[in-house]
Structure formats: structure tokens, C-alpha cells
């Protein structure tokens, strides 16, 4: 009996089996990858050679040499000097700056609106909560492009001309040329104020950090807000007073057919901003609501038990914890906003798509280069926003104790 048992297992090797240098699975994996790479290289070569043949047949130049040529077009909005005599490369930079400005303003606006909406969604007030829900459901379920068209073609374009502007208290005017607002001018003290503001900002940050360290070490620390107040308001005021106290508010004035003076926000900018901010704020509102509701119930009860008011509870207990849930999806929404600025091309806002993949492409015919340029820009922006939000997320998570 014992004998047969030994015999029947006798052919098994003793100890764990040694894997051969090339297992079957490994060979197969290598073969599949080799096949895949060959196919990939062949496809890329096929497409590349076709493109080259097509380009040479149509007499289109290739390479990025065209960037140095005279652009020959004008733009409606530019933060750097640009004329039709400038080069395509300068046009590209105009588009980059316009896109970044629109993205930044949109992100700020959408964040404020979105947090307001999120808080309204969890409000005790039934009416407020219900209205926030209606707003969110309307704005997030209608395509952004349609909303942009609505603001631009249905609301802002049909506005009356400068002579029949919609007035806001006699100082701001809305007409088919855009929103014209009074412009504060500080004359020579402008740079002094900016410098003071910078110093104030640094002071505030440094003091906040010091106090946080002190609090972590001793459990007790002084307030920070006087530093922020002094840094952001007191110092600039002081700088303004010392540097000559120049200040003038230029109120736009109707002269002939148009307004003189003041700051102008173009209808394209206004429509793009409204569309993007309303659309993204609906999504942000839902994220904030989910974040607030995601905080454990015990935290609410503990905050109430400690005698905090509702506002204190939100600010000190709930929101800091909700931020951990909020930040990752919020990053996705910021990314989405930055990418969605591309839709503003459809309402003639001079951003990357309309200048690079639009005008430059049609004028030079260099489709491959211009579209790669546009894509490269968006990839860079996406990576940048992702990096910033990862850093923020890290900061928020690190505060966990």
C-alpha cells in the first residue's frame, strides 16, 4: 500500500518546479508585441508617406517655417501689441494669452458660482435648495455650444447700439459693442500699489504658515486675519497715499456713435465667460453638494454639540473635510473648462482654435502643423492644471492628522 503511493507520485520533481528561461506565455507575449509594433510602424509609415505625397502634390510647404511669415489678419482682442503686419507666431501668442485669460476668469467665476450653488443645494431653505436644483439641471443638460450661441447670438448681439445702451446707474453701459465699465486709474501710484499688494500677499502667507506651525506645536496661536487685512488692504492704501494719492475713475462717455474711456468687455468675451461659467458651475455645484453630503454624519452632530452656529459648522468643520472629496473631481471640471474654451471659436472669440486651427490654417494650408500646434497647447495646459490640482490635493490630504 505504502509502496504504490510512493510509486504513483514518484515522477513528481522534489521541491518547487524551476521555470524555464522562456515560458510558453512569455514567447507568445513577445510574438504578439512584435506583431503589434510591426503593424504600428507600418501604419505610421503608410500615413506619413501618404501625407508627404499629398502635400507635395498640392504644393503645400511643410515644417514650422511659416510661423515667421506676416500674418495679415487682425484680431478683435489682444493683450499684447498685434497688427496685420505681425507674424503668425505672434498671432499664436495672442491666442495663447486670450485662451489663458478666458480660462482663468472662467475658473474663478465658475468656482464662486459653483460653491454658492452647492451650499444652496444643501440649504435648509426649501425654496433656495429647489431653485439651485432647477438651475443645475437646466445648465448641465444643455450642450455648452448651444448655451454660447444663446448668450452671443440671442442675447448680446441683438442689444441696441451705443446710443440706446442699457444703463447701470449711469456709469456702466451694455450695448452691442459689449459691456463698458468705469476704469480706475491710479496714475503713477499704480506700480507702487501692485508692489505693496505683492508684499502684503507674501506677509499673509508667511504669517499663516507661522501661526499654523505654532498651533500644531502648542495648540494655541493668534489670529491671522489682521495680517491679511493689513497686507491686502492697509499696505496698498499706504503705498497709494505715500506715492502721491493719485486716483481717477474714468467713466465712459457717449461721444458721437461710441463710448470714450472706460474698460470694455467685448460681447464675445462676455458670452464665452457667461456660457462657460454657467455650464461648469452647474457641475461644480453638484460636486460641492456631494462633497458636503459625503462628510460623516457624526461630524455634523459633533459640531452642533460643540455649540457652533450653522455657518461656523460649515466653515470650520464640514468644508475642510469636504474639500478632500471635492478637489479631484473639481480638477476634472477645471480641465474641462480649459478645454471647452475651444468652443468660443464658434462665437468668434479669438482663441487658439479660431486663430491657429482657423485663420492660420486656411491662410497657409498647413493643416498638420497648425493642428499639432493647437493640440500641443492644450496638452501643455492640461498637464499644468493637473499638476497644480495634484499639488493642492496633496496639501489638503497632508493636513490630515
Amino acid at each position, binding site marked *: 500500500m505504502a509502496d504504490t503511493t510512493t510509486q504513483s507520485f514518484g515522477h513528481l520533481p522534489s521541491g518547487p518546479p524551476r521555470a524555464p528561461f522562456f515560458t510558453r506565455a512569455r514567447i507568445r*507575449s513577445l510574438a*504578439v*508585441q512584435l506583431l*503589434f*509594433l510591426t503593424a*504600428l510602424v507600418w501604419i505610421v509609415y503608410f*500615413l506619413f508617406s*501618404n*501625407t508627404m*505625397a*499629398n*502635400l507635395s*502634390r498640392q504644393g503645400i510647404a511643410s515644417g514650422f517655417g511659416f510661423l515667421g511669415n506676416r500674418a495679415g489678419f487682425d484680431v478683435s482682442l489682444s493683450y499684447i501689441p498685434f497688427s496685420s503686419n505681425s507674424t503668425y507666431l505672434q498671432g499664436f501668442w495672442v491666442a495663447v494669452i486670450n485662451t489663458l485669460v478666458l480660462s482663468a476668469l472662467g475658473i474663478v467665476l465658475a468656482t464662486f458660482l459653483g460653491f454658492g450653488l452647492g451650499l444652496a443645494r444643501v440649504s*435648509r*431653505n*426649501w*425654496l*433656495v435648495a429647489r*431653485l439651485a436644483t432647477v438651475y443645475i*439641471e*437646466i445648465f448641465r*443638460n*444643455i*450642450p*455648452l*455650444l*448651444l*448655451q454660447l*450661441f*444663446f448668450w452671443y*447670438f*440671442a*442675447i448680446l448681439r*441683438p442689444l441696441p447700439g451705443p446710443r440706446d445702451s442699457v444703463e447701470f446707474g449711469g456709469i456702466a453701459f451694455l450695448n452691442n459693442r459689449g459691456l463698458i465699465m468705469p476704469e480706475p486709474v491710479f496714475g503713477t501710484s499704480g506700480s507702487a500699489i501692485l508692489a505693496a499688494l505683492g508684499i502684503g500677499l507674501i506677509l499673509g502667507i508667511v504669517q499663516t504658515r507661522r501661526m499654523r506651525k505654532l498651533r500644531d506645536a502648542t495648540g494655541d496661536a493668534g489670529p491671522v486675519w489682521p495680517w491679511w487685512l493689513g497686507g491686502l488692504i492697509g499696505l496698498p492704501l499706504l503705498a497709494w497715499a505715500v506715492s502721491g494719492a493719485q486716483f481717477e475713475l474714468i467713466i465712459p462717455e457717449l461721444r458721437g456713435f461710441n463710448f470714450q474711456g472706460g474698460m470694455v468687455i467685448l460681447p464675445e468675451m462676455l458670452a464665452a465667460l457667461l456660457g462657460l461659467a454657467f455650464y461648469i458651475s452647474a457641475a461644480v455645484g453638484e460636486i460641492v453638494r456631494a462633497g458636503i453630503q459625503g462628510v460623516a454624519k457624526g461630524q455634523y452632530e459633533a459640531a452642533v454639540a460643540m455649540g457652533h452656529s450653522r455657518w461656523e459648522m460649515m466653515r470650520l468643520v464640514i468644508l475642510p473635510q469636504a474639500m478632500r472629496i471635492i478637489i479631484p473631481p473639481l480638477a476634472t471640471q477645471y480641465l474641462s473648462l480649459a*478645454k*471647452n474654451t*475651444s*468652443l468660443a*471659436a*464658434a462665437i468668434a472669440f479669438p482663441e487658439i*482654435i479660431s486663430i491657429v*486651427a482657423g485663420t492660420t*490654417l486656411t491662410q497657409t494650408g498647413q*493643416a*498638420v502643423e497648425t*493642428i499639432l500646434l*493647437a*493640440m500641443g497647447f*492644450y*496638452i501643455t495646459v*492640461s*498637464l499644468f492644471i493637473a499638476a497644480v490640482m495634484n499639488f493642492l490635493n496633496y496639501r489638503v490630504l497632508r493636513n490630515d492628522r
Partner: protein
Amino acid sequence: MTDKLLTANAAIREQTGILPPAEGRLPPKVHTGPVDWIHRNLFPDWRQGLLTIVVLYLLYLSMPGLYNWAIGNATWAGDRADCVANGGACWAFVNARWGQFMYGFYPVAERWRVDLTFVLLIASVAPLLFPATPGKRWILGFALLVYPVIAFFLLYGGILGLPVVETARWGGFMLTLVVAISGMVGSLPLGILLALGRRSKMTSIRLFCTTFIELFRAVPLITVLFMASVMLPLFMPQGFTLDKLLRALLGVALFNGALMAEVIRGGLQAIPRGQYEAATASGMGYWRMMIFVILPQALRIVIPGIVNTYVAIIKDTTLVLIIGLFDLLGIVQAGIADSNWLSASVTKTGYVFAGMGFWVLCFGLSRYSMYLERRLNTGHNT
């Protein structure tokens, strides 16, 4: 005696918020009735009450105007002059253009084909929406594999004596559905392959899939559509042209395939290792394991995410108008530029109408996704 105790208890509770443990304790306050509801939800304290009053006043200011525009002063039949005279919405414009808004430039005599395609779509998708339908697998197979072929030949024609209708004549709501549904059907298998590739052990395939996904996720859909419409023809050999609509569909499918891949990857990561190990131990190869064990579980987990991507696809279909196709928004845009109708009220009406169309689709689908989320969530990890 009892009365006295009750008043004393009430006083204590009023001052301290603590109920004295006496036998004559009052029953808890019952929150019922409309008056109490209003008190709790609209006027719990003076600040909320003030807010309620301000909001009500704002509603009082805005709602009549909205009603008058949409219904009160609206024009239901007539022409531009009537609309301008009445000042409200110009529903007469929508009425006059209804056929074009729905079918684009599809020949009137052939429009029954579009209707039939739509009816077939409803018939094959509707049973899938309900949990209790028997034989779902077969219906799903029909909807994903057979239906697109039938739909293409019905819409395009060229067989069984159906006259050919060029894709350039497709438009309106019908084109919106064509783009949206092709995007949905195309992005799912592509997304599955990319997600599997990104988790593959083969380095070259993983690298390729990761790069593909991240590149497409980093750029806006417009650039992909531009690429499909301007760059793709350059890629093709001489004399070979791809239909403009087909190129747009390709762009939409590739872009959303990359988005879908990330959704599905989430599902794949949620499957416990034991499932992979058990499948391997049962002697299954890679594809068998994926098709019969992993994907059925992973896809079920991410159904809400898939439906949310579908909502995004519907909203994104509007972008095809930028490369010159006439989807619902594109045809409305073209309609309001018509000199016979051109006016501020027609412009507003056109966009509101298109907006309502998209809203119904997207809102319906997102509600359905919420319903699924609730239903799939019961009894599991909560």
C-alpha cells in the same frame, strides 16, 4: 396637578432644552400639516425667512416675464411680421421648419425610412431599459451588431430598390441621433480594448494604449474633429476619400473611446484579484477570463459611468456643426439666419427649442443613470 407639572416641564425645556424625566412628560411635537411644513422649510428663523421673502420677490419679478414670452405673447402660427408684432416667442417659426429640424435635407418622399429606423431603435432599446426583460443578451446583441447595419442601409439606401440618400442631405435631429448613437456604439468596444490594453502586461501595448488615452483626454473634441476633417484626408492614399460624416463619426468614436476607457478601467480595478486568480486556476486563457468572468462584472459596476459618458456624447454631437455638418443645432442656426425669418425673437426661439430638445434627451438619460446607480447599489458595499 398634571397641568402644573406640564407647564413646569415646558418651562424647563424652554430654558435648557432638556426634558425633565417626569411621568407627565409631553408627547414629542408632531411635524405635520402645511403650516408646519412652511414653518420648518421656509421660515425656520428670521434669516432664512428674509431669504425666502427676497427669493419669492425675485421670482415674482421674473416669472410673469418668462410666462409672457413663452406663452402669453407667443406666436403659434403666422410669419415673421406676426412674431415681431407680438413680441413673444415665435413658435410659428419652429412649426414652419419642423420637417427640416427633424430630417435635415432628407427628401420628403423618403422620410418614412428615417421614421422606420427610429421606431426600430425604440423597439430594440426600450426592452433593455427594464430590469425584468427576458433574453436581454440577445436583444443587446441585436441592438449592437444587427441594428446598426439595418439602420445604415435604411438611411443610406442602395439596396432593395431604395434610392440612395447622400449623407450630405442628412441633418437635423436625425443627424444628431446618428452621430450620438454611432459614438455610443463605437466608443464602448474601443474603450474596452483600450482599458484592457492599458492594464496589459505587454509593455508595448500598455504604452501605446496609455499614450493614446492620455493624448485624447488632454485635447478638446474640436481639435480631434478638425483633425478628422482636415488632416485625415491628407493621410489617405491618392484618390481615396472618406465621407465627411464618416470622418466626423470616426473622430467622435476615437475621442469618446478614450474617455470610455478610463471609465471601464475603474471597473476593472474594482474587481478583486481573487476573480482573476480563480479564472486562471480554472484553466481559462486571457480572453476567456476577460469575456466570461472579468468584463461582465466590471461593466456592470460602471454602467452609471457609461451612461454619464453617453450624456456627454449627446451634448458633444453639437460640435459637428463646426466642421460643416447640420445637426439639430446646426440646422436651427441655419434656419434663424434665413432672411424670411431673421429677427431677435426668432433667434431666441430657435435656440430655446433646440435647447429643450437636448435637455429632454440628456436629462432623461441622466435620471436613468441615477436610477441604475440606486438599483445597482442595493445590498452591496454600503
